[in-house]
Structures are given as C-alpha cells and as structure tokens.
C-alpha cells in the first residue's frame, strides 16, 4: 500500500496536469473558431478558381500545345507527395494518421516500381517519416501558420513546386492533408495537384452554366492565361490544404485535450478514494492501538 504522502503527491500532480490540459483545450477551441472562419472565408476563391480552370481546361482539351502542368509530363514514374502536418504534437492522432496514410501510399507506389519523393510541411511529419524514408525527403518547411497560414507562404510552396516540375524532378504531385469534417473527425485526404484534375463538383456546375455560356473569348490567348493561372492555382490548392489542416489540427487537439482532462478527472477520483481509505485505515489502526494500550493498564 502506497503511503499517504505519495498518494497526496500523486493527486496534486494529476491535478496540475488536468489544469494544463483543460487550458490547452480552451486555447484550441478559440483557435479552432478562428481557423474555421479562415478556412470558410477562403473557400469562395478556390471554388471560383476551380470553375475558371474548368472552363479553360475544356477549351484546351485535346490540344497539343496544352501546358504541361495541365496535361502532365507524359510519364508517371516519379511521384512527389507533399505531406502537410502540424508543427506541434499533443493533438491526438492528427499527425500519425497522416503519416500512416503516407507510409501506405509510399509502399504501394514503390511496390509497383515507381519512385517516390517527399516534401514535408510541418515539423511532426518530418520527424516521423525521417526514420523510415529519410533519404526520400527532398524538401522541408516548418513554422508555417503561427497565426494561421498566410497566402504568401502557400504561394511560395506553389512556386517551388512549379519550378521543381519544370526541372523534371517529378511527374505526378499529390498533396496530403487532413480535411476538416467536424471537431471529432478529420479525414486524411490525398489530392492530386499535377497534372491538374477537374474535380467532380465543378463538372456539375459547368453543366448548369453550359447552356448560357458555351465558349469564352480569351484575352490574352488561353495558353498564356493557363501558363499564368496554373502555377497560381497550385498556390491556391496548397493554401486550401494548409487552412483545412490548421482547422483540423485545432479540432483534433481540442478533442484530445478534452479526453485527457476527463481521464485526469477519473484518475483523481480513483486516487482520492484510495487516499481516503488508507487515511481511515490509519485512524482506525491508531484507535485500536490506543484502546488496547489503555486496556493493558
């Protein structure tokens, strides 16, 4: 049986931990609200961008001179995976679920004879992937989004990707992030960036508007616009991924800290009960000693 003193110390230390986790939960909750607002505010831009690219891609489809960012380099030998994780831990399965997804994808690609390169955004993803795929990581960024991701940061990554693609360092580029579903659930999402794919939602919207506007005039011509807009679109997609990720991170941290606080509460109850029991046992023992001492006189 643990001594009274050690039980008391134990209760105190768990209480301290509980204070920290509940404070972290509150902080995460307020950050989550901000991150969610930012993610929602950025959605219109990405949607319009998709719509515009959809029309452009339609106009370009089947043409020989389509930019490579749109049509791909003609190979799919080298895959680049952009892994977006958080810089900080203590957010439940947030980072490890991304890493697990990436690990599976890398093994899958490697077993089918493709080579894989990794671009990690966020400290945690690099730390976890370095052990296994250290030599595959060609680029790393961290410290993004202290105060929420900014578009300029995403644009830099986009430009870098464009440059690497032009230097033919990879053929297919995919970005991995946690899509924000709700506070409780974040879904690991793989999204292909290069070559550009029109997602299904835009297709539907295009059908709606297709009766009114079938063809566009372009100023300057469509190849020039595409050459300009595609690298830019990369930045937008990266930005969207980072924002979703930021919201997911806070959501994951909030529910993880909520659990931790609850568990600490349970533990305190259990240890307090044990403490009281042994305190009573001690008192009873002392009483018996006094009574039997008095009897012996």
């Amino acid at each position: 049986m643990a001594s009274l003193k050690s039980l008391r110390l134990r209760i105190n230390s768990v209480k301290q931990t509980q204070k920290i986790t509940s404070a972290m939960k509150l902080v995460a909750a307020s950050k989550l609200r901000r991150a969610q607002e930012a993610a929602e505010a950025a959605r219109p831009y990405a949607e319009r961008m998709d719509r515009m690219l959809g029309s452009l891609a339609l106009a370009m489809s089947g043409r020989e001179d389509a930019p490579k960012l749109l049509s791909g380099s003609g190979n799919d030998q080298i895959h680049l995976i952009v892994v977006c994780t958080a810089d900080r831990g203590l957010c439940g399965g947030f980072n490890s679920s991304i890493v697990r997804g990436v690990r599976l994808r890398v093994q899958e690609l490697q077993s089918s004879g493709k080579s894989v390169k990794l671009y990690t955004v966020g400290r945690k993803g690099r730390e976890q992937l370095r052990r296994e795929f250290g030599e595959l990581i060609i680029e790393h960024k961290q410290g993004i989004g202290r105060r929420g991701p900014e578009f300029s940061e995403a644009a830099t990554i986009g430009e870098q990707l464009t440059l690497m693609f032009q230097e033919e360092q990879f053929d297919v580029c995919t970005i991995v992030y946690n899509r924000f579903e709700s506070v409780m659930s974040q879904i690991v999402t793989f999204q292909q960036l290069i070559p550009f794919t029109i997602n299904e939602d835009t297709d539907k919207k295009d059908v709606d508007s297709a009766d009114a506007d079938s063809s566009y005039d372009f100023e300057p011509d469509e190849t020039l616009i595409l050459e300009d807009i595609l690298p830019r679109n990369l930045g937008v997609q990266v930005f969207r991924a980072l924002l979703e990720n930021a919201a997911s991170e806070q959501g994951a941290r909030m529910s993880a800290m909520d659990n931790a606080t609850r568990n600490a509460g349970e533990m305190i109850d259990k240890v307090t009960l044990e403490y009281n029991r042994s305190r009573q046992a001690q008192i009873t023992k002392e009483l018996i000693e006094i009574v039997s001492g008095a009897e012996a006189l």
Partner: protein
Amino acid sequence: MVETVQFELVAPEKLIFTGEVELVVVPGAEGDFGVLPGHANLISTVRPGIVEIYESNQVKERYFVGGGYAEVTSKRCTVLSTESMPVSEIDTNGAQERLNAAESDLSSTTSETDRSRAERSVEVARALVEASQN
C-alpha cells in the same frame, strides 16, 4: 428596373465584394474593360489597378486589385485577385514603403526568376501608391 450584373471580387483570404452592379470597370491586361449586362463570355488576366463599380453613371465604390483573373459571362463577372482592398483603406505611407522595398529588392537581385518576381512586385506596389493618391 435597371439591368444588373452579378459581380464578385475575391481575394485568396476572403470574399471582398459580392452584389448586383450596373457597370463595373476592370483593369484588364490589355486595357480596361467595362462590364454591362449581356457582355460576351471572356476570360482575361487583370493587371494591378483599380476596379470601379458604377451606379447611375457615378463611381460608387473603388477597389484596389494587385493583379489576377477575370471571368465574364452575360450574367456575372468574377474577379479573382491576388490581393484586394477598398481604395479608402489603403495606407499611403505603407504603400510607399512597400514600393521602396520592392525597388531595392529589384536592384539587388541577379537571377532571372527573382528578377521577374521583383519586377512584378514593384508593379503592384506602384499601382498601390497611385491608387492611394487619387
């Protein structure tokens, strides 16, 4: 009832303006163009400058845009800007500082890609300064 166009001005961070307008003038890469209802379908790049929204032949609102793209159809006009803000909110000193910083960047860079990027940011900053002055 005057016919209107559904106009949207979007920046990466958020939706800046959305609403029905009678006429909007967009600084296209190959010259400014006005959008009235029933405009031909058009996709154009936008140079740094000012988007003007008109109501009964008067400029009602002015927004600075730092370049981007415009998509026009007969019913709507969407401008995707790299950055945007109402002209009234531009900080004149900040704009001037930005222009100076961009110019010194331009003079100190050597590589081809950095150079074109610096040139572009000088252009944006210059448009911002001009916008803040009138």
